[in-house]
């Protein structure tokens, strides 16, 4: 007899993320009579929508050439952040070398990275730890 149990676990909320990820746990219990099989076993398989729904983050790295005002404007345009928030991120990039601008679904994060590269900023896509 096979029994399936599916549970849904929302992942941690991430800043600004749209629709967090969902880990789907698929448990399969198998009970088969017969000496060859031995003790009934439980197989457990955890499956997540790998790489698609896991949270990803958009990181901008420091660059001595790009002007601070320019970087602030780009953050406002790309993410729609108010000037104060954009400036906070810009200063974080400047002082700490990097800033996480956005976290959420991979597809959207890729789009943001592409837009940032269009403005010639050093931006990367990273998996949330």
């Amino acid at each position, binding site marked *: 007899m096979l029994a399936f149990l599916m549970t849904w676990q929302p992942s941690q909320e991430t800043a600004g993320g749209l629709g967090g990820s969902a880990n789907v746990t698929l448990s399969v219990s198998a009970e088969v009579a017969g000496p060859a099989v031995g003790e009934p076993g439980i197989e457990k398989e955890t499956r997540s929508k790998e790489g698609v729904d896991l949270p990803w983050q958009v990181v901008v790295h420091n660059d001595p050439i790009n002007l601070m005002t*320019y970087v602030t404007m780009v953050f406002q345009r790309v993410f729609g952040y*108010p000037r104060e928030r954009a400036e906070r991120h810009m200063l974080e990039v400047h002082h700490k070398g990097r800033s996480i601008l956005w976290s959420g679904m991979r597809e959207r994060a890729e789009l943001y*990275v*592409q837009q940032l*590269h269009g403005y010639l900023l050093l931006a990367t*896509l990273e998996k949330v730890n």
Partner: protein
Amino acid sequence: MEICRRKDELEISELDPFLAELLRQIPVSTNADGVPAAEERLFSPPAGGEDKEFCAEWKLYVQPELRRLFRSATETVAADLEQLNGEEKAFANCTLRIPAKHADAWLNTLNQARLVIAAKNNFTDGELGDHYRSPTGSRRDLSLFQVNFYGFLQEFILRELMGGQESSPD
């Protein structure tokens, strides 16, 4: 040199021949051909080395789009700069008018030029912070002056673009 906003234009007037020549140099300064460091800076990887598949797809699909975007911006700027080629008197001051709708293209192209020049010369942070160095010392000093002059133009365009924008609470 004077720089101001007039209706739907940004006007740079009283341009002496030296500064006018630096402006003419903007499009050619964006050329990263044959300089791997400059090419790598313009087309930096979108992820760490572990995400090879994503980087490969990026190179295939996104990079050509970025090239088109950068080329288009540079062509817009080059067309605006044609105004500087009609001056009959070789050493006369001249005026450049940039349509406000071209501001984004100018910001992008000036950024390309600054990044490429900086990558070609491998400027240190100290050099980039030295805004008072004379451009007449060496080719390197002239390049540094170019980076700073283009940065000054970017600042002005940004100020005009962001003008009147109030900061709002996050």
